[in-house]
């Protein structure tokens, strides 16, 4: 399985089983540079598990996950992050006790070691990055608000902002628009399009309307396997997909 590819992310034969139950079963998935890919699938299809496997949260049973031709499996989470993969969780995971400013500052990719953290200084460069990310994620007016006081949608944005601070080459977003108002969804779609210009994005989403708005290529997962892959139209007309979603 040591194929050298031009893909940013190459997942091959990825399998994980929990007590014999294969949540992800011999999965193959390839992601190009600057691609925005959406994964959809019914509940229990293994979508979140795939993200967990890529970012090291769950240990794979077998297979391979290559990022820029480097094997990620077996690496600790923080090393995977440092190689350029960022991950947003299903329920927004931000630090409620810290302000937006601090949330972003903590995510800045410097001073990540113990002694680095002790001597870290918030330079003008950091300040500027925080400012610009806050603007990108529509939070420039909330810099000194504590995370706990943000709306659900704003928390989602903040977490995306925290990923942006890390400048990852691959961003993995688990249901980024869950709990958002229609207006917020629209903004989020814009946001994703903008930030996908210079990085790859892997999105898990349920909201089909939102998916069709952002997706170029969609992968459908079912029972841990890929059911279909293609443009939104192709997927839409795929009989198997329809069966799965309608419960046949």
């Amino acid at each position, binding site marked *: 399985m040591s194929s050298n590819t031009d893909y940013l992310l190459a997942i091959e034969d990825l399998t994980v089983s*929990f*007590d014999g139950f294969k949540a992800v079963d011999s999965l193959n998935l390839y992601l190009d540079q600057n691609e925005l890919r959406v994964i959809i699938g019914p509940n229990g299809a293994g979508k979140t*598990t795939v993200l967990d496997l890529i970012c090291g949260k*769950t240990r794979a049973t077998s297979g391979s996950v290559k990022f820029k031709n480097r094997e990620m499996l077996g690496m600790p989470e923080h090393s995977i992050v440092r190689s350029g993969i960022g991950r947003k969780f299903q329920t927004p995971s931000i630090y409620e006790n810290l302000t937006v400013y601090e949330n972003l500052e903590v995510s800045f990719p410097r001073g990540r070691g113990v002694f680095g953290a002790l001597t870290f200084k918030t330079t003008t460069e950091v300040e500027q990055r925080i400012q610009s990310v806050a603007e990108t994620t529509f939070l420039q007016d909330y810099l000194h608000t504590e995370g706990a006081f943000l709306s659900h949608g704003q928390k989602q944005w903040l977490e995306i902002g925290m990923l942006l601070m890390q400048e990852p080459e691959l961003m993995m977003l688990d249901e980024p628009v869950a709990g958002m108002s229609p207006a917020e969804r629209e903004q989020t779609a814009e946001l994703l399009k903008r930030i996908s210009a210079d990085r790859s994005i892997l999105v898990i989403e349920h909201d089909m309307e939102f998916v069709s708005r952002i997706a170029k290529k969609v992968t459908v997962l079912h029972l841990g396997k890929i059911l279909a892959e293609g443009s939104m139209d192709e997927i839409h007309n795929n009989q198997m997909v329809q069966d799965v979603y309608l419960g046949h």
Partner: protein
Amino acid sequence: MMLAYTTSELTSIFTMQGFAGLSLFSVLLLMALGLAIIFGQMGVINMAHGEFMAAGAYTVYLCSTLTAKFAPAFQPYYFLFAIVAAFFVSGSLGLLVEWGLIRFLYKRPLDTLLATWGLSLIMQQTFRSTFGAREVTPTLPDWLMGSFKPTETIDIPINGVFVMGLTLFITAAVMFFTFKTRAGLRMRATVQNRMMSGAVGINTKVVDRLTFAIGCGIAGVAGAAFTTIGSTGPDSGSRYIVDTFLVVVFGGAASMLGTVASAFGIAQTQSISEFFLQGTMGKVTTLLAIVIILMIRPQGLFASKVRRA
């Protein structure tokens, strides 16, 4: 050194040593069962668990004193009733504590630890004020003391057999309750998904309260059983608590089977190391072994395998 003994003597010693290990195993298991239910099912760290045991032991002492005073003829049988009484005394105390303290602290496991530690201090002083600082022993029926003699050289202590039997019974009862009854089903459902259980009409508050009370009641039974092998003092409970926690943690918190296996492993290790090493160092060796194993395998012997949320 061993050469000086006949084979039959050595066989006897190994038989008795095996029994000593089993006896310690039942003691540890009996201590840990109640805690395993409370910790495993509710996530509450009950540091006052030892004091609930002591409450059970004091109940037996009280029954013994009352029997001696009012119904001396009843003396050979009172002990069995005293055990039941111990269950209900400690259980009701448990109900009270859940209502007055624990229910404010769900989802704050470390805080339950500290608060119940405070509770244990208060209970200890209450014992001391009520029963005095000295250790007490109930007068046990004669049939409990002494030993079986299957051969000339083997002595099997009856109190050990009794504790073992009681442990077996309680373990079976707990297993039956958890896996075969409606109430047990509700308890398990509440552990798995509190919100969902509430939604399908299980009164999770009542389930919590009963779970805690049953755990405490079992501690009471354990305390009652221990009066056959040791004494009861105001701080007897605190002597047991660390061992008990290690048994539960070592077993893997959520697994009943793990608790049994871990009590067995720890008891055998300790009893063997005490046989070959000297006193204190046997205990230190055992504890050290447990901690080192826990460092290598922090989830305990039997971890429940579920996807981490």
